[in-house]
């Protein structure tokens, strides 16, 4: 598995896309800091970018890589290697290189602007951790979709749709249900609904660390009570890990049974 991981990783490194991705974040980080010149403000803007772009790029990259390396995969399948290690290796290669681009691309400019002396360091590391989780989750989902669909167009369609669903449509449905059931106590419902969407969960986690003044008002107290405590953070991280592990598990399960 490690060998295949290494192959995929170096393959991606050679393909320049990781560099483009890395440079994009590097540039973004520098531009944001140049315009804001204040770490905590830049972290807020960055959050908006991360919760939208990271899942999108993870999804598209995952699908693209899977379809592109199909011939290589088939070649590997002919060798006496465990199927799960082939797919896990590829998955980890993609997710790992994307995560590395993200962490380094954002980490370098912030570190240069004095992150380590600033008290924004915890907010920033939370941002990077959720960014890493989102990359893992969405490239995992993308691999699953690509594995289940032979047709590239269909696979791409489903992948983009899954991103669109979790990033936009889910919130729309969530909002509608909140408005329709506004007569009922909704605190626990909204907590649960947040838990079941990794994008919402990451957003709420970061937001409660950053911009709590509005959320603290009125009903915000219950969210703060939950997400503000260590227990809340631990549960959220467990949920994010589950979101990562379930697609990975399904990837292994499906790949064993699939007829190539």
């Amino acid at each position: 598995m490690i060998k295949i991981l290494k192959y995929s990783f170096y393959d991606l490194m050679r393909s320049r896309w990781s560099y483009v991705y890395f440079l994009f974040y590097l540039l973004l980080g520098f531009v944001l800091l140049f315009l804001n010149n204040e770490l905590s403000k830049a972290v807020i803007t960055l959050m908006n970018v991360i919760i939208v772009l990271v899942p999108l790029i993870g999804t598209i990259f995952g699908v693209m890589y899977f379809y592109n390396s199909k011939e290589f995969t088939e070649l590997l399948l002919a060798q006496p290697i465990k199927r799960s290690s082939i797919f896990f290796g590829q998955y980890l290669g993609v997710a790992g290189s994307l995560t590395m681009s993200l962490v380094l691309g954002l980490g370098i400019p912030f570190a240069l602007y004095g992150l380590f002396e600033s008290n924004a360091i915890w907010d920033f590391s939370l941002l990077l951790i959720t960014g890493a989780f989102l990359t893992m989750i969405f490239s995992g989902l993308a691999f699953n979709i690509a594995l289940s669909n032979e047709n590239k167009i269909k696979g791409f369609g489903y992948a983009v749709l899954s991103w669109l669903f979790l990033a936009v449509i889910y919130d729309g449905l969530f909002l509608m249900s909140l408005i329709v059931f506004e007569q009922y106590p909704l605190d626990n419902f909204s907590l649960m609904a947040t838990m079941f969407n990794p994008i919402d969960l990451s957003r709420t986690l970061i937001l409660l660390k950053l911009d709590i003044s509005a959320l603290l008002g009125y009903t915000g107290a219950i969210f703060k009570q939950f997400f503000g405590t260590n227990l809340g953070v631990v549960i959220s991280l467990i949920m994010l890990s589950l979101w990562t592990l379930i697609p990975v598990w399904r990837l292994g399960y499906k790949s064993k049974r699939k007829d190539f």
Partner: protein
Amino acid sequence: MGKKQLFFVIIMLLIGVKTWASTITVCKTCPIKTIQEGISQASDFDTVLVKNGTYNEFNLKINKPLTLMGEGNPIIDGGEQGEIIQIMANNVTIDGFVIKNVGTSYTSDYAAIRVIGSEDFLIQNVKLEKLFFGIYLEKSKNGMVLNNTIQGDAKDEYNSGNGIQLWYSQNIVVANNSIQNVRDGIYLEFSDFITIEHNYSGNNLRYGLHFMFSNDDVYKGNTFENNGAGVAVMFSKRIDMHGNTFKKNWGTASFGLLLKEINDAEISGNTFEENTVGISIEGSNRIVYRNNDFISNGWAIKVRGACYANTITNNNFLYNSFDLAYNGNLHDNVFEKNYWSDYTGYDLDRDGFGDVPYRPVKLFSYIVNRTPETIILLRSLFMDIIDFSEKVSPVFTPDNLVDAKPLMKRNK
């Protein structure tokens, strides 16, 4: 010099001699050992000079004009027995004491210093600790309360008192005081023509400053920080609020400034920073909001209804989660020439005003007003999309609620 004038001069001289104040010294080794004794021996317009030391006294009644002066911050310890100093005469000055251990009672409002029906008093450089009520002015006029420090230890609202309380008082200046950890920092009830300036009121259980049925008052240059609910101005007219700082009033029912049934006031040059709600307005009419800064609040202004003919102009709205929340569709207030950090328009004719009107009420703030739980969707992509579509073609928010001339640059 005529006879009449000479007579007059002699009379004046005699009065001068009569009012020539003497000084009575109170100290542990002096003939006069207690403040009570000093006060009773003094005649009108005398000075009672209290030397350094601790005096265990309470119920000191001052019923003649005199100056009670502390030297080296003498301590008056009330031993939790009740009220400590009561002023019931005109022209009384209290200067330079540390007063502590006022009794707590559930039936009467014991105060460290109470002024009853007096005029021209001056209370300054007094430090109050372990108090119930601090300085209580009752039906008094023309006085000054300056440079005092009030440090309470209030835990619950029901058994704590206010720092400085004015009740049916007029023409009083309250300046440069620091009030912390009491119930209401400064409380005014039925008090008119009061000036409150350069005070610090923070960490109080309820309000930093609280007005009830008080008209024609001015408060300026004060700082209100981290109070239970902020500053409340209720049922009052013609209040001038200028150059104050309201910050860090965070909490589920907290605000920087609450206006309820306030008419004809002016709010200018204030800074509202990091409050859950900057200003919460209810039933307030003809108020002018000028040159205020709203920075990083949850809501900068929350209008709760029945607010007409208000003018909001030349303010800076910077990085608030919501600039404005509005209840209902009826709208009769003017928003003009403000700077909004969320404004994305352009200025082609370069007159300093944006060419596209700014809509301060976002659809999301309208939705949150209706269903508060939806706040959890703050900053989500979906909300940005529907906010954008609402901005392009307003359906839910009042369509005439616009700043037609938003400033392009921050108002200095």
